[in-house]
């Protein structure tokens, strides 16, 4: 049985090690925070915060305290605030150990597309290009195929890139794959998903 959203998030949480500073994207990646357990993980919000806490209780929302998705959040004992230049300085400078983010397409060479569909609504890349270029490890969490059943793991991306050759690992509802020399390598499959199932759903070269 393929993983659901929460199971994908739970699997992604296994990528995180004690002491890591991590940036989580919007969507499924946000759920990863629910599964870090006892591990001492510090979350960065790229609008200027390390040590991001959970959503506030009703009535305790602070307009001066939001995350990169513009949602109200809370601070923690370890929190530090800083400005956007400093925030992306630490991202670009490789101080963030890992980013977990969603994607529209990933290519077998690690190319990532997740910011723009030409001709459709153009919203902008936000901090995604900085994150994929700068952090230590880029982990993509996404459905293996789109709603039409077409593979999102491609030989080449068709959409404008967010970064070239930047993805390290992909966690989908069907399994876990690494970007290696020559293509993608299956690391693990979801329960009751066979490697053949996964191959059948994948356009990218599997090595």
């Amino acid at each position, binding site marked *: 049985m393929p993983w659901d959203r929460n199971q994908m998030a739970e699997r992604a949480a296994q990528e995180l090690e004690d002491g890591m500073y991590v940036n989580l994207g919007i969507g499924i990646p946000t759920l990863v925070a629910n599964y870090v357990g006892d591990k001492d993980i510090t979350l960065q919000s790229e609008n200027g915060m390390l040590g991001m806490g959970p*959503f506030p209780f009703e009535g305790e929302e602070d307009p*001066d305290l*939001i995350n990169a998705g513009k949602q109200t959040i809370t601070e923690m004992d370890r929190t530090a605030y800083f400005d956007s*230049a400093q925030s992306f300085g630490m991202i670009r400078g490789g101080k963030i150990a890992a980013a977990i983010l969603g994607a529209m397409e990933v290519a077998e060479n690690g190319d990532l597309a997740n910011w723009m569909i030409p001709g459709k609504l153009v919203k902008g890349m936000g901090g*995604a290009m900085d994150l994929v270029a700068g952090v230590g490890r880029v982990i993509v969490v996404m459905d293996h195929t789109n709603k039409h059943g077409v593979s999102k793991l491609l030989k080449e991306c068709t959409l404008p890139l967010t970064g070239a050759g930047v993805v390290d690992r992909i966690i989908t509802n069907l399994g876990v794959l690494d970007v290696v020399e020559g293509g993608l390598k299956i690391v693990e499959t979801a329960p009751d998903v066979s490697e053949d199932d996964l191959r059948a759903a994948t356009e990218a070269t599997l090595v």
Partner: protein
Amino acid sequence: MKKIYANATEALDGLLRDDMLIAAGGFGLCGIPELLLEAIKDSGVKNLTFASNNAGVDDFGIGILLQTGQVSKMMSSYVGENDEFMRQYLSGELEIEFNPQGTLAERMRAGGCGIPGFYTKTGVGTQVAEGKEHKDFNGETYIMEEGIFADLSIVKAWKADETGNCIFRKTARNFNPPAAMCGKVCVMEVEEIVPVGTLDPDHIHLPGIYVHRLIQGEHEKRIEQRTVRQKEGA
């Protein structure tokens, strides 16, 4: 050193002109110079270019200047919250130069620090790199991005003393310091002006040297995405 003005309109007096480049602080609706944006709307100045991470929402932040058609170009990283923006962009009324968020912040800081260009890996191999100088350092390819030198900076802080030394509050700091640094003139709005000597010199986030004009006022501080959790057992 008289930096304090009575209100946003007076603080902007003599600084606004058509076709100018304005750097604005704020992320989403958090920490935006809402009073100064309102005064710019009232001034009727037009054909403005804004360097600002976002474009506000339809009726708040820079959005109010889009409604009036006063903005001709945005230098931003994300504008997804604004329908009027999309309409003007798709109809060709509005130009947009997308900047990765960190590149935009660093370009502002660079301008403020007298750095006309710097190299970054961000955007290499993407549309953002097109037309930009590429250079290799230690076997890796980088692109050159240019400093932003704005005609005017408009920013929002929490508290400032009479010399403009100021502090921000939580994530409302965001783009405000780099935006403040990159303008020829910087006008700042704060929630409270305090006497000189009130703020601890070790806690100043942005020294007054960057702040030329200062106003105090009431802020709406609108929340864009109100998200909450339930108390356990509630």
